[in-house]
């Protein structure tokens, strides 16, 4: 601990602190822009209704959709994690990003049409309509919230903390709490519309800043060919063990990998084997992009299906960039600073970055601190803040949607719209508090390879969900029993691998973990593939052994019936009916009470700020029940344009994969 603070002070006195007017002006300017975009979007949509608050009134065009998809996905975890893993093991980690190019097209073409015609707001709601019963949707809500806290929020905050500590030397709690409060402010007030417009602005900031840094780093290292040539010799100068009785350092722990510039690596000896990269990442990507509330909610807020598809294509093109903007600079960082970023001796590493395992996580912050001139360092800090805040804000908003629409409506079915919106906002504050409490846990668990940690946890818990959703959308025969037991079976299998691995620890190159081969021998991506297939088999077997769901319950809930115009008898209509009746009674009572009370000035102001208009809103959206079916018809001209564009994008993606394979 003592050496850690010492190194921090040294760093801050060197060049870390942002204390010159140029940097400060840029940061202040950034915050002003973000808050003003948030306030502007507050007046554009009606946030008084559930549809307006959680789905931006379904009025978004393609460019906020695409930019918001990208900004919600790219968090500070990507900057720190992609660059760090790139520094440690080469470009294969970019495969995670480039695989998403294809998965995002699956989202726009196959999944969103079904979600749109189903008329749902959250993913557990879709499963409830598709299968009936309440246990599947409850399970999905709980596990999604769990995954958000443990993979997305904690990782993004940890990366933000690493960056802030390395680049600024601020007290981590002060910095993180301020960030979270600013994020919570515009999330709580603006709803999804504010988020999507601020995400568009933040996408520009992220890409512009990252381009600037990439330019500087390539200039510093001497160009792309210099990167190719110098990376293989980027070894640290200290590689002999300081305590030979305890451990020995073998050369392969500090020498850069031979296949560092290959995307597709050996299936048995590679750290990211190619079947895993192609299929395993596709499965985890299928969960992340096609079934997860954060991403799907942005697509559901679009104006029409064509806008969704165009937004997905835009997001795909943007996803080409992280390889060049984050992975390559990470590798350049290792070339320029091999003794810090590539340190291998545990005692030295602890002095440099506070962890014994390795310091590859500081690859990106080190570049920002060392090679960016004044003013631009402030821009890079704005970039990191943009990435951090956009991701966190999206996760907060989506988790509050999940909690409000799935868990709260089960506890209190008679909740009015106004109450739901208030609960949504309060939940955001709760989750901010939980995230702040989680910081010390993440700090203590500082693992060497951050990105690997997220991906492995996702690989153990996400494949069953992806499999159930895929089968739910495409196979009519799948019913509630099959889906439920498939989910539970998949969860148990995933936990069988995840808990022992966490118990034994992931270990490092010098101190490998003593996890038995039976449990930890299979690579986590391969395990994800196996888990996906086992869950699918289980779902299908149980479904075929129990009675099917009739077509009359499935209109517009499966891909083959997405265009059907027939009346659907909802499987959960009893619940909905009860809820609607209770809601109507509650609203009657409120209206009677509201006519009596006098509106004081302050109450009126607060209500306007929070977007309430409690008495008007229910009348506007009272016929929520027989609402018009969202239209998924497309203008043929635009359909062909969008399809052609998707083909072009896939061609570009295939070329990049072939080039770097």
């Amino acid at each position: 601990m003592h050496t850690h603070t010492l190194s921090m002070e040294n760093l801050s006195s060197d060049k870390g602190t942002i204390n010159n007017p140029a940097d400060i002006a840029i940061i202040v300017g950034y915050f002003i822009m973000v808050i003003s975009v948030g306030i502007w979007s507050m007046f554009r949509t009606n946030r008084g209704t559930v549809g307006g608050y959680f789905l931006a009134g379904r009025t978004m065009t393609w460019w906020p959709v695409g930019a918001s998809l990208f900004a919600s996905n790219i968090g500070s975890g990507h900057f720190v994690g992609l660059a760090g893993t790139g520094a440690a093991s080469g470009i294969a980690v970019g495969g995670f990003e480039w695989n998403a190019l294809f998965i995002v097209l699956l989202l726009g073409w196959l999944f969103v049409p079904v979600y749109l015609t189903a008329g749902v707001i959250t993913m557990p709601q879709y499963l409830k309509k598709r299968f009936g019963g309440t246990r599947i949707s409850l399970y999905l809500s709980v596990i999604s919230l769990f995954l958000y806290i443990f993979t997305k929020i904690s990782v993004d905050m940890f990366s933000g903390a690493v960056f802030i500590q390395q680049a600024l030397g601020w007290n981590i709690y002060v910095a993180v709490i301020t960030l979270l409060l600013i994020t919570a402010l515009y999330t709580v007030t603006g709803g999804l519309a504010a988020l999507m417009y601020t995400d568009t602005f933040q996408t520009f900031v992220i890409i512009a800043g990252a381009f600037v840094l990439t330019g500087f780093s390539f200039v510093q290292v001497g160009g792309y060919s210099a990167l190719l040539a110098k990376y293989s010799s980027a070894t640290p100068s200290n590689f002999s063990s300081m305590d030979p009785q305890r451990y020995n350092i073998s050369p392969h722990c500090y020498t850069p990998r031979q296949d560092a510039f290959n995307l597709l690596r050996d299936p048995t000896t590679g750290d990211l084997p190619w079947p895993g990269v192609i299929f395993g990442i596709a499965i985890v990507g299928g969960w992340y992009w096609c079934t997860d509330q954060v991403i799907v909610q942005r697509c559901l807020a679009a104006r029409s299906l064509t806008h969704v598809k165009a937004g997905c294509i835009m997001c795909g093109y943007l996803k080409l960039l992280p390889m060049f903007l984050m992975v390559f600079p990470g590798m350049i960082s290792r070339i320029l600073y091999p003794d810090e970023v590539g340190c291998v001796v545990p005692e030295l590493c602890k002095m440099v970055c506070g962890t014994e395992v390795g310091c590859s996580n500081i690859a990106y912050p080190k570049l920002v601190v060392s090679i960016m001139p004044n003013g631009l360092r402030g821009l890079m800090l704005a970039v990191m803040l943009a990435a951090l805040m956009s991701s966190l804000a999206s996760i907060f908003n989506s988790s509050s949607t999940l909690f409000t629409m799935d868990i709260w409506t089960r506890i209190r079915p008679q909740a009015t719209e106004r109450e739901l919106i208030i609960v949504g906002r309060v939940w955001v504050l709760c989750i901010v508090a939980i995230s702040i409490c989680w910081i010390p846990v993440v700090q203590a668990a500082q693992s060497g390879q951050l990105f690997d940690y997220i991906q492995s946890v996702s690989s153990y818990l996400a494949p069953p969900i992806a499999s159930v959703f895929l089968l739910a959308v495409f196979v009519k025969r799948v019913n509630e029993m099959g889906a439920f037991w498939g989910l539970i079976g998949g969860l148990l299998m995933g936990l069988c691998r995840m808990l022992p691995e966490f118990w034994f620890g992931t270990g490092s190159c010098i101190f490998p973990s003593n996890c038995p081969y039976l449990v930890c021998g299979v690579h986590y991506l391969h395990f994800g593939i196996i888990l996906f297939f086992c869950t699918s088999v289980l779902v299908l077997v149980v479904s075929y052994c129990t009675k099917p769901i009739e077509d009359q319950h499935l209109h517009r809930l499966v891909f083959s019936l997405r265009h059907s115009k027939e009346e659907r008898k909802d499987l959960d209509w009893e619940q909905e009916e009860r809820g609607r009746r209770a809601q109507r009674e509650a609203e009657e009572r409120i209206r009677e009470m509201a006519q009596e009370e006098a509106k004081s000035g302050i109450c009126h102001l607060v209500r306007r700020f929070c977007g309430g208009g409690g008495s008007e809103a229910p009348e506007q959206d009272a016929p929520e029940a027989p609402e018009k079916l969202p239209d998924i018809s497309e203008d043929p001209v635009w359909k062909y344009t969008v399809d052609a564009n998707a083909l072009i994008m896939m061609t570009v993606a295939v070329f990049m994969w072939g080039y770097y394979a």
Partner: protein
Amino acid sequence: MGKLCAVTSCLLLTVSAAAAQTAQPQIERLLPQWLTGIIAVSAFLFLVFVTLLVKKAWCEKPSRKTAVESESDRENEFVVTNGNTYETNLDTIRRKSTVESTGENEFGNTYETTLEMVRSKEDPNAFDNLAFGSADDKVTSM
């Protein structure tokens, strides 16, 4: 002999150890990178082309089958109606054939059965006997 073996094996060991210690360059590629990219793109476009063909064949076959079925249904109706009634009235034949010919022109497999066809050229009130028109007389050689 034994010493020579020992020396050569020691030499080989040190050489291989030295080779392992030096930083190896990246894995040798068989083809230049841009070429693998182009090959991947061509394979992908070929697959897309095949998929489009399959989709076209799949979607056209059922629609073409249903069109043929509906036409043959209609033909069957006419055939049935024609087969079950025996025309003894020349007027009905004339009228029906004109209706048929105007309605089913695109087929070309309806037969004009108006009397105008069999009216002989020499005499306006005489009609040709079509049975004698054929020219293939079988003549047996004596």
